[in-house]
């Protein structure tokens, strides 16, 4: 389901942000079509609540519509920022924390991505790569990193949940993240 026009498909995120700043609804629609599926997936994985996930999804893009001028495309990746914000919002809701203010999210969460995810093909390629990395990890490391990322759990909470020593949990997470780093660099 993509309604992006040919022009919008080729437009960069930065160009679409510029158009949103000019109150161009089509530009927001293009960005939604580009990233809504990716965000919907992570929101549903974290919340396991479709309605809650859709509310956050709608709110994220509406925030982008209202505050596009605050996003500096030269400092970070829009795709990366959207994924960080989606996870933070979902974890906050899951753990009943107050999410950061919209302005703070835009200004503080600079996210650098070495990959361009502006096309569906690029997203699929990266998805395959990340899944491949995770599948390579030992089950304990895979479980630890999924609990940390999709449930927002700290070392201590993971240790408590799994019954493993805290040091072991830390080592598993560090090792898994080191693997991820090497794979994605």
């Amino acid at each position, binding site marked *: 389901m993509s309604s992006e026009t040919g022009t919008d498909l080729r437009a960069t995120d930065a160009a679409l942000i510029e158009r949103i700043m000019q109150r161009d609804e089509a530009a927001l629609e293009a960005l939604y079509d580009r990233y809504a599926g990716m965000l*919907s*997936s992570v929101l549903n994985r974290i919340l396991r609540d479709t309605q809650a996930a859709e509310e956050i999804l709608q709110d994220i893009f*509406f925030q982008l519509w209202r505050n596009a001028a605050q996003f500096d495309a030269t400092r970070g990746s829009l795709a*990366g920022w959207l994924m960080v914000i989606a996870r933070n919002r979902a974890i906050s809701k899951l753990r009943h924390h107050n999410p950061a203010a919209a302005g703070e999210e835009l200004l503080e969460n600079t996210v650098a991505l070495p990959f361009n995810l502006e096309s569906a093909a690029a997203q699929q390629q990266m998805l395959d790569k990340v899944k491949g990395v995770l599948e390579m990890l030992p089950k304990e490391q895979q479980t630890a990193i999924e609990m940390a*990322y999709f449930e927002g759990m700290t070392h201590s909470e993971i240790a408590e949940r799994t019954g493993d020593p805290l040091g072991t949990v830390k080592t598993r*997470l560090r090792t898994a*993240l080191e693997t991820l780093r090497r794979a994605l660099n």
Partner: protein
Amino acid sequence: MTNGHPSREEDFELYALGSLEGDEKREFEAHLASCADCARKLAEARGRVALLALAAPPVKPSAAVKARLMQQVRQDRSRFDAASAPRKAERAEGYFGSWWAAGILVPTTIVLAIIAGVLWTENQNLDRRLTNLRADLQQQQQQFQESREVADLITARDTMIVPLAAQRGMPKGAAHVMYNEKMGMLMYEGELDPAPANKAYQLWLVPAKGNPISAGVFTPGADKSNHFMMKVPQGVAPAAFAVTLEPAGGEAQPTGPKVLVGPVS
């Protein structure tokens, strides 16, 4: 931590995950605030961690989400356009009414009012000073005129000096009158005992023909002396000058006893 930097590279990912706790987290954040290099590394770590989102099972959002979003956007745009139009009009039309009135006109009016008040006060002060200066100038001109007249009287060759002698049984004293017939001016200088209560001394020019002419009413001070100038009708040839004791305020014609008398020889 090594020299403040995280000792292991994966610390950046752990922080991005939100897994760092306690002192580790506090030290990391304290260092980040002052280290641009570590802030850059954290941005990169955030990107790598963010990619974990792609590992989530794919779930497409319903078409209703996009429809609601775009409806929300259109409503927001309508509100924005509706709100910005009056604001633009207000800025264009009400600029002077609001901004100038509130920001410039009112303070300017106050300042002008203060300045006007200060200037009015200053003007009043200047008026008073000018009036005083005029009065002083007039007084000085009068004094100068009198001084010049005294000088003229004293230096004039036809000014006569008439001594006045005390009369028997009267208050003790002595005086003289300098008189110039052409100028119609005389000057009295003398000493007399204080006048009785409710009484005053009065100087008379006694012409050769006609009634005496009053030339001044006076009361001696503590030093008994008096000195004054007096203008009288010009061209009056005097037969004598006399001082009489009169009721306070003087009389049109002599009514009291002669205290001092000086015949013109």
